[in-house]
């Protein structure tokens, strides 16, 4: 009898405590949900506009206005974004590929010739900090501007200016290869998926 009631007490205690903590975590989640979603959206919009040569406002409200005026999402079988600024038109593709530890999700911008890269941003990656994660450093991203590919890798520090090469990262061969594949994949996609005249 005593043993059984002890058991019930234990179960009830655990259940109650779980309810209390789940309640607390859920409350915090609900209170911050909107802020987190807004943060995510701002991050994405900055990353997308950062793939074009356009300079964009930093304050959240102006940024959103800017984005909504200029960016259009094309929900086709292979979705893409267009950024229109006056006479200039840019395409942005979202391409992902397997990195060393997880998926690398990338935004890549192109000129209206659908060939020349105008910028690249990694919106999600879980590569090794200090090695593969260095793909997020600005020198690495900036070197892709103006490339027409298909790209191949040269050792870090070469500072290649060829339109078909980029400096890989020493000690991060798998990550660098993944980026190479993603970029080349995007180059193929941009030339095939977007139908002529559709923008």
């Amino acid at each position: 009898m005593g043993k059984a009631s002890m058991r019930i007490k234990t179960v009830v205690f655990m259940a109650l405590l779980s309810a209390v903590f789940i309640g607390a975590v859920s409350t915090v989640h609900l209170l911050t949900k909107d802020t987190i979603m807004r943060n995510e959206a701002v991050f994405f919009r900055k990353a997308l506009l950062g793939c074009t040569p356009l300079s964009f406002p930093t304050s959240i409200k102006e940024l959103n206005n800017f984005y909504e005026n200029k960016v259009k999402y094309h929900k086709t079988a292979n979705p893409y974004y267009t950024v229109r600024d006056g006479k200039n038109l840019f395409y942005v593709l979202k391409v992902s590929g397997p990195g060393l530890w997880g998926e690398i999700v990338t935004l890549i911008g192109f000129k209206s010739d659908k060939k020349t890269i105008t910028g690249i941003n990694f919106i999600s990656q879980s590569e090794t900090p200090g090695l593969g994660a260095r793909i997020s450093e600005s020198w690495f991203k900036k070197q892709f501007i103006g490339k027409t590919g298909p790209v191949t890798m040269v050792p870090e520090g070469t500072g290649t200016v060829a339109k078909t090469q980029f400096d890989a990262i020493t000690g991060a061969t798998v990550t660098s290869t993944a980026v190479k594949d993603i970029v080349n994949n995007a180059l193929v996609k941009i030339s095939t998926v977007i139908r002529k005249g559709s923008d």
Partner: protein
Amino acid sequence: MSSRTSNVVFSNLGRDNPVFVQILGICSTLAVTNVLKNTLVMAIGLIFTTALSNFTVSLLRRFIPTRIRMMVSTLIIASWVIIVEIMLKAQVPEIARQLGPYVGLIITNCIIMGRAEAFAMQNTPGISLVDGLSSGVGYSWVLLLIAFFRELMGSGTVWGQVVLGSWWVKWSIMVMAPGAFFMLAIFIWIVKGRILVEKEASNGR
């Protein structure tokens, strides 16, 4: 500060240090110490969760049935870690993004469970909070020291700023997990072989 409090604080920072004496929290020591910035945020997250978990466990210690105390501790720790993670995402999204999976991994840090088991279950909330805080700080200073050397030798930088010029050949191994094993082992060797040994000897006399 009472002698009890200062005793708890100093032993956690030094002779009972969670990392180099108790050898706890080694997984995160290996994982996050290749870049100083990540290490600091991990350290702050750990200080925060260890303190709060210790405090909560201590508050409930008279009610927790002995047989399920590990389950209860885990529940408490997991809840605090998730709350910390959500708050980081809401308040400092840039840092939260850089940390990626690390914050969630605080749940598996043995230091938190160790302190909850060994200290908070037997002591009052106030001193448990102090114990959690100082254990976190004891963990942090060791990690930051290791991270400083790993980042310096592995990337030639300190806090992302280049300090060693192009003449420095980067030790890629320092950035990878084996580098952490070497650094941690050397650190423990120095501390235990040089500093703590003398103290033990003088205590014995």
